[in-house]
């Protein structure tokens, strides 16, 4: 009897959780008509925000791979002074409110800072540009790739790496032929998480790049702007697209993991 009550309580709690996720999504789907949605999907503003989001988030994924994998390797494989500090720095953007991150980037890259001026001298203007969006998204989303890849590297048996070295492989060849293939699931997870986080980024992006339609207006910024200006159906259209992206990303990831687990 006690077991039954416990199971019932757990099921009820799980039910509350499901409602918490499903109900808002359901509300989003039923808030407007299909014809209105179809019309919004064809609007230049919506298409522009989708393109900007895809362009910047894919650039973020690429940069995350270039920067994140070496950092993950360093943290997983090497012992050095300041390792804990670096590890904490990797976690910092996750725990930092995105608005704070955006403000920090705005101050650093803005025209009033020395760094911003230096960049301007070389014709690089990051504020209110797509490059600024990429920097902001990279700042908040790269930790996901680093952490996931680091965990994957750490899970590899050290003797497998040593075996490669004793067979005559250099550290780079071992990295290329042993570590990367064995860590690929962790890297894929990192890519998905980073991409999803970059797509959903709002706070830091809007601080650094502003909300300029057709220039720096990402999907999340478009949702906010349209909702605030009473264009609810446009806002819903972009939100639904974002939802479909996120859901598809997660689904693809989970299917990949299942296939690999077999």
């Amino acid at each position, binding site marked *: 009897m006690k077991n039954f009550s416990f199971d019932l309580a757990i099921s009820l709690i799980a039910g509350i959780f499901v409602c918490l996720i499903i109900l808002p999504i359901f509300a989003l789907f039923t808030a407007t008509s299909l014809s209105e949605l179809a019309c919004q999907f064809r609007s230049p503003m919506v298409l522009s925000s989708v393109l900007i989001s895809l362009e910047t988030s894919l650039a973020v994924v690429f940069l995350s791979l270039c920067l994140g994998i070496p950092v993950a390797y360093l943290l997983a494989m090497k012992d050095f002074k300041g390792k804990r500090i670096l590890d904490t720095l990797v976690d910092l953007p996750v725990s930092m409110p995105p608005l704070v991150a955006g403000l920090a980037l705005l101050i650093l890259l803005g025209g009033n800072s020395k760094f911003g001026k230096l960049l301007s001298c070389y014709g690089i203007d990051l504020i209110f540009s797509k490059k600024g969006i990429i920097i902001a998204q990279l700042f908040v989303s790269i930790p996901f790739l680093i952490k996931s890849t680091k965990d994957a590297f750490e899970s590899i*048996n050290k*003797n*497998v790496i*040593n*075996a*490669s*070295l*004793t*067979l*005559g*492989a*250099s550290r780079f*060849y071992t990295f290329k*032929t*042993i570590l990367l*293939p*064995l860590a690929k699931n962790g890297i894929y997870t990192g890519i998905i998480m980073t991409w999803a986080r970059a797509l959903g980024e709002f706070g830091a992006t809007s601080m650094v790049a502003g909300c300029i339609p057709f220039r720096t207006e990402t999907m999340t910024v478009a949702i906010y702007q349209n909702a605030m200006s009473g264009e609810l159906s446009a806002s819903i259209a972009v939100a639904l697209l974002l939802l479909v992206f996120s859901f598809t990303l997660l689904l693809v990831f989970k299917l990949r993991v299942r296939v690999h687990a077999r």
Partner: protein
Amino acid sequence: MGIILKGISKSYDGRAVLENLNLEINQGEFHVLLGVSGGGKTTTLSVIAGLIKPDSGSVFIGTRDVSDLSPDKRKIGFVFQNHALFPHLSVFENIAYGLRLRKITEKEIKRKVDYYLNGVSIAKEKDKFPSQLSGGQKQRVALARALVIEPEVLLMDEPMNSLDSMTKETVLDELKNIQQKIGVTTVYVTHDQAEAAFFGDRVSVLNNGKVDQIDSPVGLFRHPRTEFVARFVGVKNILKVSPIKINNNEIIVLIKNEGLERPIKIRVKKYPVFEIDKEINLCIHPEKIILKKKNKVPENEIPDTGLNRIYGKIINITDFGNVLKVTININGMEMYATIPKNLFNFNIYENVWVCFATNAPHPLCGKKCRAPASERRCLNNSNFAPLNGG
């Protein structure tokens, strides 16, 4: 190629794992590093391989000083604990991995891999992945992968650990045959004295980062030099004795082990190292002990001739197949006997006579006074009269 380790020391967080380790391994020798976990065996192997950089000391492979070379330049083959196969590569690709780095033709790679696949009897499994292999098959792949690059030395770190006893026996036979056939200098790490006895041309016993004894497996068992080595090779009966009377061929000693309620007198064959009142450790191999039923012989009386007899009580009996390992409590001191099952007719907690010949106890000096006459060494540095027999 032989291997020379000179003054190797290595510490982790202030804890010394290797302390001024010196070791010479001859060309073509099968050398076993034997010891308990944490004794420094794997660290020694990793230092030879270049996977760990020692705090001080040098490593030579043949005449080459490899101390500053990275593992990929040392020309070694390494068989790791739990095999460490590349899980994402097939058996063929695992074995071919080292060859591909040597930039030889695909045809030559195939020829060499096939040769070793056949050599370790896993040719049929060449397209499988490590997860599809049994423990014994993985072991063979690991061995073939290490040998195919034709290393100057082969290093093996407890490779039989994960194998069941039947597979282990087969793989041990195969490994010994292969090693003898190709004659590569091999360093084999194990904590299993049976493996050491099976393989080793010579065995080094490592204790707390130092070599306690280097000897042949037989020498190690017969002439342990320290209490650690004696206990490690299964000679658990260590008697701390003080000689009190020296006769022509034998001496009377008092056993003064810790925990013993009162000293016990026994007769021991005379060895040159004995001096009156100078304490020394003796060991008695458990199979040299005979148990006899309690009779009317008074307690602890030393018979004039024949066996020593000490009164004790059986407190534990452990079954090891054909033999039983029996623990006897003697006035607070424990002694151990290995008795063939068919000769054992005692019960637990039965009082018995623990009997052993005067030549059963042997000094822990590592000198070969029990070996055949040609091998005796302790006579050379002694003023005592020669002994009869070994």
